[in-house]
């Protein structure tokens, strides 16, 4: 009787340790754990707010002026009809706090969500 109880305890301990390991792994990779949203602003108005998940696959076309691609947990301004192309060269946003700005068209793409490790980028 006593030995059966011990076996049950061992199972519980093993299960708890396994769960602890899973939680620790999730916490150790906060970028994958936290929620992440892409916000698209046009003329200082929020026009889209989309949660980015592993399965996200979406193209937002701002009447041909800017084309924004949301892919998995990333976002980028893929095309712009302006001359400087600064927003396109900003590249792919992957972390909360990153921003791509098309000044001529007053379009801002920003990622918001849990702490990402970097608060701002000096450009």
């Amino acid at each position, binding site marked *: 009787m006593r030995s059966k109880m011990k076996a049950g305890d061992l199972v519980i301990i093993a*299960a708890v340790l396994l769960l602890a390991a899973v939680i620790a792994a999730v916490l150790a990779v906060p970028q994958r754990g936290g929620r992440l949203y892409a916000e698209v602003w046009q003329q*200082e108005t929020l026009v889209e707010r989309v949660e980015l998940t592993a399965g996200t696959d979406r193209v937002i076309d701002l009447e041909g002026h800017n084309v924004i691609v949301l892919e998995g947990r990333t976002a980028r301004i893929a095309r712009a009809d302006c001359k*400087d192309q600064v927003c396109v060269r900003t590249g792919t946003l992957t972390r909360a706090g990153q921003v791509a700005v098309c000044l001529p068209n007053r379009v801002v793409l920003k990622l918001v969500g849990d702490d990402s490790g970097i*608060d701002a*980028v000096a450009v």
Partner: protein
Amino acid sequence: MKRLIAAVMLLLGLSGCASQPAAYTNDFFAMDTFMSVTLYGSTPDGRPADDGTLSDMAESISRTVNRLDAALSRTQTAGDLYRLNHADGAVTEVSAETYEAVRQAVAYAEQTGGAFDPTMAPVTDLWQIGTDQARVPAQAELDEALTHVGYQNVKLLGENRIQLLNGAQIDLGGIGKGFAGDAVCALLQGENGAASWQALAALGGNIVLYGGNPARKDGSWVIGVADPDQTADSLVTLARADGSVVTSGDYERFFEQDGKRYHHIFDPATGYPADTGLRSVTVIDESSTRADAMTTALFVMGLEKGMAFCREQGIAAVFITADKQVVCSPAVSDMAVFSFEGEDKGYTYAQ
């Protein structure tokens, strides 16, 4: 089973994070760029400031930046600088704020031996970089324009009066955002209600930090230094509680002609974009105005001269070179916690 549930509940309880104070973010366009201010406030008894208090301060900040934009812009016709530039050399009285901005610009020009010069307007006008009319000017045009360039042409006469000699024109684009950053700090420091503030202001890529970061235990804000080829990514991170981090790079405004890149950081000695093998220079400083002026000056000096200048003057600078090196001046380690992250992008770090 009950014991299993209890153990799981305990684990989940332990893994829960302490709640963080809420940030208030205000985004706006000013000084021909995008600005984003993240603000935390607390009352004297330590409670988080309410939304109204936060939005009032955010509003004050954007009002201050817009006021400076109007005063220090070359194109806003109602502003101080426009009046000064169009006074045909007559003595012009400006606001105390504008006078201070010009005074600092001239002081940094003197300190850097003219590597930073706020009188480059006739040259930048010829290139028109950042507009559809950008072009490479003829040498004769540049030679003529350069005869009007020189910070010595700016006479600071006291009592907020300034005179421009020799057809000089002032362009404060090289320090405007920095000066605005310092004004934001002064505002946060002032007696604005009973609140105390913590803030991160990204003024078009010029970063101003104030009062520490409540979201991090050590109070630091972590600032990335942009990868010149993909500016959302960082080659370096710098952690600090306050002060300013400013970067100038050849990727911000430029145009290409016959396969050559012409960017917006001009060498006052030649009238051409500085061609010194650098992609960007970042300066960490208590004063955002000084940081702004120094990034331009160091970019013009190039790595070797710039590094010697940093050693001599105790300036904290991070140079990113075209041959993919990240080089720090000695003062960087005194000013921030530095971390190199450019290895997987083919960069090497040299101290």
